[in-house]
C-alpha cells in the first residue's frame, strides 16, 4: 500500500512533457501536493487569499538564500514573515506599484528568485504571456495572490488554497491564538483530483522558522 504514492510519483515523472526544469526548495508537506514535487523555477502558482500560505511557500527558498519580492501587497505582515523563517534582509517589498505593476514585476524578475504579486486588475493575455516568458528565461517563480475565484491567473501551474483551518489556544474569552491546523488543497493545471494535506502551523513558532508539519494524504 505504501508504495502506491511512490508509483504514482514515478508515473508522473515519466509522463513529464517538458524538458527538465529546476525546482526550488519547498516546504515538504506542500511539495508533495505540487505537480513535479516542488515549486518549479519559471513557473506561476496561484494562491487563494491566504498570506500565511504565501509565507509558507517563501520560507524555504528564502532560508536557502533566495531573494524574494512582494509586489502590490501593502498589508504583508513583516513580523509574521520573519516568524516563518523568511530572511527579511533578502525580502523586498513594493507595496504600491500602481498601474505599473506588470512592468515592476518584470523588472524585479530579472534579479529576484521568487515574486509574489497581487494583480489589481485582470491583465491582458498578451502581457501575461510576455511576463511568463521573462520569468521562464530568468528562472523566477511567480506566486499570484488572488482574492476569490474570479481572479485566477491564466497559465498558472497549480492553485493553492487553505480550505479548512482550526485554531488551538483560544477559547471563549480566554487564552490566545497559539497554533493552527490547516488543510492545504492544491489543484493542478493538468486537472485530476485536488490533493490535500493537513499542516500544523506554526509549530515551534519563531524557533526553527519553518512551521513543521504532520502531513497525511487522504
Amino acid at each position, binding site marked *: 500500500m505504501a508504495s502506491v504514492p511512490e508509483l504514482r510519483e514515478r508515473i508522473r515523472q515519466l509522463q513529464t512533457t517538458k524538458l527538465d526544469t529546476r525546482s526550488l526548495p519547498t516546504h515538504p508537506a506542500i511539495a508533495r501536493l505540487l505537480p513535479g514535487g516542488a515549486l518549479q523555477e519559471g513557473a506561476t502558482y496561484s494562491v487563494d*487569499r*491566504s*498570506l*500565511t500560505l*504565501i*509565507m509558507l511557500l517563501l520560507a524555504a527558498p528564502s532560508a536557502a538564500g533566495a*531573494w524574494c519580492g512582494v509586489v502590490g501587497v*501593502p*498589508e*504583508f*505582515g*513583516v*513580523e*509574521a*514573515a*520573519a*516568524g516563518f523563517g523568511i530572511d*527579511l*534582509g*533578502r*525580502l*523586498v*517589498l*513594493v*507595496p*504600491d*506599484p*500602481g498601474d*505599473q505593476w506588470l*512592468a*515592476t514585476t518584470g*523588472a*524585479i524578475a*530579472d*534579479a*529576484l528568485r521568487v515574486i509574489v504579486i497581487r494583480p489589481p486588475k485582470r491583465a491582458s493575455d498578451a502581457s501575461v504571456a510576455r511576463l511568463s516568458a521573462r520569468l521562464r528565461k530568468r528562472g523566477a517563480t511567480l506566486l499570484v495572490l488572488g482574492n476569490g475565484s474570479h481572479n485566477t491567473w491564466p497559465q498558472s501551474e497549480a492553485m493553492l488554497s*487553505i480550505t*479548512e*483551518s*482550526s*485554531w488551538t489556544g*483560544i*477559547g*471563549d*474569552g*480566554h*487564552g*490566545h*491564538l*497559539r*497554533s*493552527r491546523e*490547516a488543510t492545504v488543497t492544491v489543484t493542478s493545471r493538468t486537472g485530476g483530483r485536488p490533493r490535500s494535506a493537513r499542516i500544523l502551523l*506554526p509549530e515551534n*513558532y*519563531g524557533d526553527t522558522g519553518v512551521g513543521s508539519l504532520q502531513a497525511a494524504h487522504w
Partner: protein
Amino acid sequence: MPASISAPERVLLLWCPDWPVEAAIRTQGLKPDALIAIIETGRVFACSASARAEGVIRGLKLREAQARCPTLLVAPHHPDEEARAFEPVLTAIEELMPGVQSLRPGVCAIRARGPASYYGSEEEAALWLLDQLDELGVPGTRIGIADGVFTAEQAARQRFPQRIRVVPAGTAAEYLAPLPVGVLDDSSAGEASVVTLLRRLGVYTLGDFAALDAGDVRDRLGEQGARLHALSGGLDSRPVVARVPPDDLECAIAFEPAVDRIDQVAFGVRALADRFIAGLTAAKLVCTAVRVELDSESDELSSRTWLHPRSFTTAEVVDRVRWQLQGGASEVGLSSGIIAVRLIPASVDSIGNHEEGLFGGGPDERIHHALSRVQGMLGRTAVLTGAIGGGRGPADRATLVPWGDRLVHDREPSPPWPGHLPAPAPSTVFEPPRPVTVFSASGDTLAVDVRGALNGSPASMSSGRSTLRLTAWAGPWTVDEQWWDSARASRTSRFQVVDTTGTAWLLALEHGHWWAEGRYD
C-alpha cells in the same frame, strides 16, 4: 627620567567661556540673552551668564536649577554638535596662525613661539587673535599665555578684567601656587579621587602640593598623582599637537541661469558627483552619508542627509539629488529654478573597511541594479526592505526603509515592550486599520469600560458589507500608550477572534470604535 620633567613650551591658550551654551545658541537658534542650561545625565553641564546670575551652577541637579530659575531653557549636551560649531572658530584662528590644537570644544591651544616672533610679542599676537574672534561674533573669549597647556588654561580662566593674561616664562610655579587643588579636578574620575584625598591630607593649594617630594607623591598616589604633581609645579610638558586641517571634500556647482527641470539638474550634477567621489577616493575615504543642499531662485534652501547601507557611488549620488528634487515637486517641473547644488560628505569611512571581498559582500550587483531601476520608475520610497522594530501594535513593529537607505528604527527593538502580542503575528497587517463593528449575541455593539471589562461576549463582526459569525475570542488586552502626551495618547484594547471559516482576526477597540488591525489568514 620621565618625560614630564622636560621643560614646558610657551603656549597660547584660547578659551571661549560657556561654549556648550554658545553652540546651542548657534545650532538651535536660541536667543543669546536667554537663560540657558545644558544638561547631561540630569545635571547642569554648562549654563549661560544670565542663568549663572540667577544661581544656576555647574553640577546642579536639573530640578534644583529649575527651582532657582523657573524660566530656564534646557538643552541636552551634544559633544558632536559643539565640536562642529567650534570648527569655524578654529578655521578663523588658522587664518592668523597655523598649528592649532583643539583640546575640547571651546578650548584650543597654539604654540606661542611662532606667532610671538611674527606679531612682535605674545600680547600682540593675542590681541590680533581677539580682534579676529570678535569679528566672528564669539563673545567673551579669553586668552592665557604661559609655560605649558595646564598653566595657560589656568591663566585664561582666572577672573581678571583684562582678557589676556600672560604668565612670564619660568614663573608658572609661582603663578599656580595660590590656586586651590580643585582646579586639578577637571575630567576623569581618577583625578577627582586624588583631589579628594589631597584635601583630606590637608593639602589645599597647588603650592602646597607642588612642595611635596615628587618621589613620595609617586609612591603614595601613583602615576596619575605624579602627573598632577608635575602640573601643579608648572611642569606641564604636554606638547601642543597641531591638528591637520581637514581636506575640503565638499563639492558645489552653480547654475547660471537657473535650471528648472529635474533631468537637467541631474545631468549637470553628474560631473560634480564624479568629482565628489573622486575627491573622496583620493583621500582614501568612502562616503556613507551625504548631505545634499539645493539653493533655489526663490532663496529656499533644501538640505537633506541621505544614508547609505554601504557607500555611495557616482550614480547613487546623482539619484539622491534627483530624489530630493522630486520630493518637493511634481513630475518634472520645479517650483522655482535651482541655482546651486552642494554635496557635503556627512560621514566618511576609511576605504579599507569598504573594499569588496574577493567573493563579494553585500547584495548582488544585479539585484541592486534591478531594484534601483524600479525606484527610478516608481520613486525612491516605493521599494522597501523591512525589519522588526519595537512597539506593541503589529503595524508599529514593522520598520520599513527605502531600498538603499540605512536601517534606522523609529522604536528600538531592544527594550522590552510589555503588552505586545504573543506569537504568532498576523500575516496580514492592515495599515491603516479597517473599521468594523462587533456585536454581542444580543445584537448590541460591544464596548469596554474604564476598568477593561467587556459588556458581553463577541458573537459577530461586520465590515459593512458582510457579517461573520465568531466561534472563539480572547481579550481584551488593554494598552495605555503615551498617556503623558495628550496629543499622542492612545488607549487601545486588543482582541483576537476566530470566525466560522477558521480565519482569525486581530481587533482593536479605541475610543469606542472597532478596528481590524490584522488577519491571521
